[in-house]
């Protein structure tokens, strides 16, 4: 990876560490808050990327050997996320409301041990499977050709990863978002979470592809039509996610049931949060949807990566909106500290995938054969 990027991201990491440290030192609950936000965001992106790799593999997509390998790189963020998860579990008391006021009838599910157990199992399962996927894909690179056995086991694990991705993302959604507002229930929410993860994941893939196209000399491997296709996927998912969002919103709006509405009213209807929420929605979904209508944008890696950045910002702010208001309904929590922490995580993220990509060949030969 380019040195400048390395330095920048290391700097970011340090800044973020300082920021979070400061937060915990001064206002611990805020520190926890930011930690949760970052976890939800980056777990989402990383798992989304891997899910793409698996999905392309399952679909036997013919145009993605490079993109798949970029996606594989997300597996390197596992240690970081795992550590954060452990910290979060250890510090549950610091931010979840259902420990001092147990939610009636939900004690079985919303209890510290249950929480810890299922989260750790989920993490092990997902990252374990993804690790297998990546490892087996790398193993193929070493070989001159692709033995059927390898191809088959790769397909197999890919399917597993896709399934596990859906389940584990759902659990993360329930535990780190829904459980913060214990009375709230929405069946589509978990699906919404992992679909937006795929969205964000694709955005990151676009960025990586745009960034590393020249440095790795992949001009002939990443033709405009690759970006066009990725752009179309972004387009499709921006619409689909808006659809899911609307499905949830209209359903809850229509019957106005006290248990359901509060979560949405707080964020999208009354009080201080709606401006932020709607901004994130428009920035993350609506505007990209409109921009991506244009073939020209989709074909150019530069313009497309701008859209991708927009998407990531939108989704990031949305994650913040999903987490924070449940804990501090009355007042906004916006501080440089928070910004820094996000920066820090972003830095870690870049470092880890950079490390991966500088290690391994950017072309997954297992998928390459499919092109032929």
């Amino acid at each position, binding site marked *: 990876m380019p040195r400048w990027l390395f330095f920048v991201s290391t700097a970011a990491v340090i800044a973020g560490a300082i920021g979070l440290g400061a937060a915990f030192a001064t206002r611990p609950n805020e520190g926890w808050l930011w930690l949760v936000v970052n976890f939800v965001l980056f777990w989402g992106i990383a798992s989304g990327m891997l899910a793409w790799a698996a999905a392309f593999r399952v679909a036997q997509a013919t145009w993605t050997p490079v993109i798949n390998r970029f996606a594989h790189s997300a597996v390197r963020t596992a240690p970081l996320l795992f550590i954060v998860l452990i910290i979060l579990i250890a510090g549950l008391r610091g931010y979840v409301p259902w420990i001092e006021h147990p939610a009636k009838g939900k004690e079985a599910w919303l209890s510290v041990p249950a929480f810890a157990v299922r989260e750790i199992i989920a993490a092990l399962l997902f990252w374990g499977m993804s690790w297998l996927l990546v490892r087996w894909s790398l193993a193929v690179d070493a070989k001159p050709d692709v033995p059927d056995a390898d191809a088959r086991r790769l397909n197999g694990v890919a399917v597993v990863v896709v399934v596990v991705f859906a389940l584990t993302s759902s659990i993360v959604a329930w535990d780190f978002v829904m459980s913060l507002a214990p009375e709230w229930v929405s069946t589509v929410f978990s699906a919404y979470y992992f679909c937006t993860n795929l969205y964000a994941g694709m955005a990151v893939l676009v960025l990586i592809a745009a960034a590393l196209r020249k440095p790795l000399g992949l001009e002939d491997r990443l033709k405009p039509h690759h970006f066009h296709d990725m752009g179309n996927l972004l387009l499709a998912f921006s619409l689909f996610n808006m659809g899911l969002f609307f499905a949830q919103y209209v359903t809850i709006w229509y*019957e*106005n*049931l006290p248990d359901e509405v*509060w979560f949405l009213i707080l964020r999208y209807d009354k009080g201080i949060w709606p401006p932020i929420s709607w901004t994130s929605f428009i920035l993350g979904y609506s505007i990209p949807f409109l921009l991506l209508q244009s073939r020209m944008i989709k074909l150019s890696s530069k313009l497309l990566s701008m859209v991708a950045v927009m998407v990531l910002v939108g989704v990031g702010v949305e994650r913040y909106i999903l987490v924070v208001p449940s804990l501090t309904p009355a007042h906004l929590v916006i501080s440089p500290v928070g910004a820094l922490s996000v920066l820090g995580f972003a830095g870690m993220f870049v470092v880890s995938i950079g490390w991966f990509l500088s290690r391994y060949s950017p072309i997954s030969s297992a998928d390459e054969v499919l092109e032929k």
Partner: protein
Amino acid sequence: MAFTRREFLRGIGLAAGGVAIPSVAYDRLIPYLNQPEDIVPGVSTWFATSCRECPAGCGMVVRNRESRVVKCEGNPLHPFSRGKLCPRGQAAPQGLYDPDRIRQPLRRSELGKLEPVSWDSALSELGDMLARKPRVAVMTDLQTGTLDALMRAWLAALGSDRLITYEPISYEHVKDTNGGLIPTYEIAKSDFLISFACDFLETWVSPIEYAIEFAKMREIRDGKRAGFVYVGPRVSMTAANADVRLMVSPDVIEQIATAFLEGTLERDARKYGIDPDSAKAATDGFAAAKRPLALPGLAANTCCGTAIFNARRDTGLVNRSRRHALSYVSSAADVDSFTRDTESGVIGALVIHNANPVYAMPQSERFTEALKRVPVVISLSSHLDETTAMAGWVLPSNTPLESWGDYAPYPDVVNLMQPAMGTLFDTRQAGDTLLALARAAGVNTKQSFKADTFVEYLRTRWSLAGEPWQELLQRGGKFAGAPAGLTATPITGYNTLGDPPVDRRAASLPGSTADPHFHTAAPSIYSLRLWAFPDSYLYDGRGANKWWLQETPEPVVKGVWGSWAEIHPSTAAKLGVSTNDCVKIENGGASVSVPVYVWNGVKPGTIAIPMGEGHTDYGQFARGVGVNIWPLLTEDVPLVNVTPGGGTQWVARIRGSTDQSHRAIVQTASLGENWSREKPIIMPLPSGYGKRDFYPGNKYKKHRWAMVVDLDRCIGCHACVTACYAENNLGMVGAEGVFRRREMSWIRIDRYVFDSAGHGYDIPERRGDAGSSLGRLLFQPMLCQQCDAAPCEPVCPVFAASHSEEGLNMQVYNRCVGTRYCSNNCPYKVRRFNWWDYKWPEPLNWQLNPDVTVRCRGVMEKCTFCVQRIRQAEITALREQREVMDGEITPACVQTCPTGVFTFGDLMDKNSRVSSIIETDPRAYQVLAELNTKPAVIYLKKVI
């Protein structure tokens, strides 16, 4: 007792009597050429008269629109019914408009068919016959006062005195145990009531009166209320209202009474087959009581038990000086001897008036045979009932709503009757017929009756007593202390053949004869105690020709349109039958086959069947529905043989679970604790919407109608349901319709078991409401909640369901396309769909309320809070340039409820009664409040 202006107007029947109003059948609206003096098109006239649907004799005012009777309501001036009516009273117009009424005189031809004949020829022929001085007898239903006097005078004139006042349910044993009369039980004064199988809230003697008194007695005064224990084999509606219900076999009721007095009840609980806890509860209540009072049922031993009880603990609450008219019913002995005479052929001519012994008489076939031996039988009934069907001559009488007369349920209460509309068919007053017959027989009526017509006779009789006729007529009768000359003379039975009065008590006291451990040593599974109870609406069977009564569900089992036999699951297990299987019941040579309904609301070893169904005649609504168990009643509670088999037949019931499944639908507050609201009331007003609502709700300009329903007062009598049928032109769906869950009632009485285990996943059909004995029942009137955020409204594609600016959920029939989405989305399921075009066979359609649309097939309908009455009041107020007064608007259900469950009013008016109740009463809650529909019907918790 305060009146609103409206009520008062009703009270004084505007039409001062005397004018016979022509009844015209329009097919189109044509303005009057010359207007009858007292008919203003579009304005109703109210006539005060007396209800004659049962011997209770409640006061009634009848609403007449364009010379047609359209609705009956209680007479607010009446001393004991106080403006309330029971379902039977409400259904009176259906008797009047019964499509199968006898429309002209009939005589039996050689071929044995009844064929039309003109009055003149009938009278002349019968006159000749009577002139030949046969031994004449008259058999009538309970009549007091003028008609009674006339009948006896008429008999005398024809040289006879055989007048039999026949009431199938004669309260024989109540009389026997009270020195030959039926006293008034002043339950309101008592503080502990024991009912020995006495269903005084449905059918017993004077249900409305006792319901009102009951409500008074049950009022909570400084955290206390009078206790009520029911002893009996079946959960009747009355039993469902008891604090403690002692489910015992009919045979031990008398022992229970003594056990109470001797305080051995708790000890011997097991012996009597009742659970010790309830026994204890009952005993404690009794011990604490200062003025306990027992009420006798129909069976002999219940009466004996009561007699012993009231004698030992005499608290002066049994008022024998105020005897009920039913005291004058001919005793069984008289009927017996009369039957014997008839058999012996002494009776030459028998005039039958409204009595129906052929249908309703224990072991009736004996009487039927006897009747065949009477040469001339003349029936004066208005309906072709079984007895009339056997008569040689039918000289149809007017129904009570078309008749003059008087009726004195108590010495101090004499109701006057006046026609509320002109005669519908070619029928006459019974009195006039009698007079005409006498004249035809050569009697000079002017001399011997001082009158040529019955009206004349009546008026002379009253004016002799120097009564202000007009005023009394307007008030509906003479209510304060009857003056001399008007008291109905007591009749103590005739034994012209001089045989001594038989004491039938000894004969019919299974309690005293049978072994007291009877219930423990279970009877052979093939012989059960038959507990025949008068149906809440059909009574002894006389209501069966009115479909409102057929379709109003029995309060507890919810059965309609037919008979069923209630048996306990354990008994069912022994018999090897389940709900809807038929069993054959035999006794005294008669037998019926009837489907069973298995549930735990009845004592093991007992089989309970309602009376009143199984008519072979009596019109299209009665004929062939259910079974008639009168022939089986060799004694009060006979042991009958029950054989399973005979196929299956659906018991037409309004089904659904009685199990609340922890949903807190009927909420309860326990007596003696200090109550508080768990949840605040979500007002159906803009103030009810807060920051947890997505939208702002409705704006109201002037009114927001709302209702308070006091569950603690509801006894489940269904008067409101029938009133709604009458007021709002609800269609008849029949047995199949009810079976398919298509009943049209806009208001229904749900009932839930209080201590339900919560295993409420399926409907009783498949669970049979198991469990040894049924828990306490809670009644809940359920009608459209007029929600402010109504789920039914937004889903309608065409705005047929929308919200009025007075807060009502409007249903625009003309706009409705019938998607039924609103009904699906109504959590209270109070919307009703027109599955067919419902028919009102001529002339039943004459009763239709002209203020209410008749809905066509394919549209949804629902409770409107009687919007027509609301508009009426608003218009009146407008005309008088004032605001609508609180309490001025009374929807039909509110109007007729005997116990005052409902309060209707305006929420925008902070001082209205509804507002203040909702504000202050800690028992107030909303059903399914968690759905945030903001209902405008606020319930007050049941007090347990």
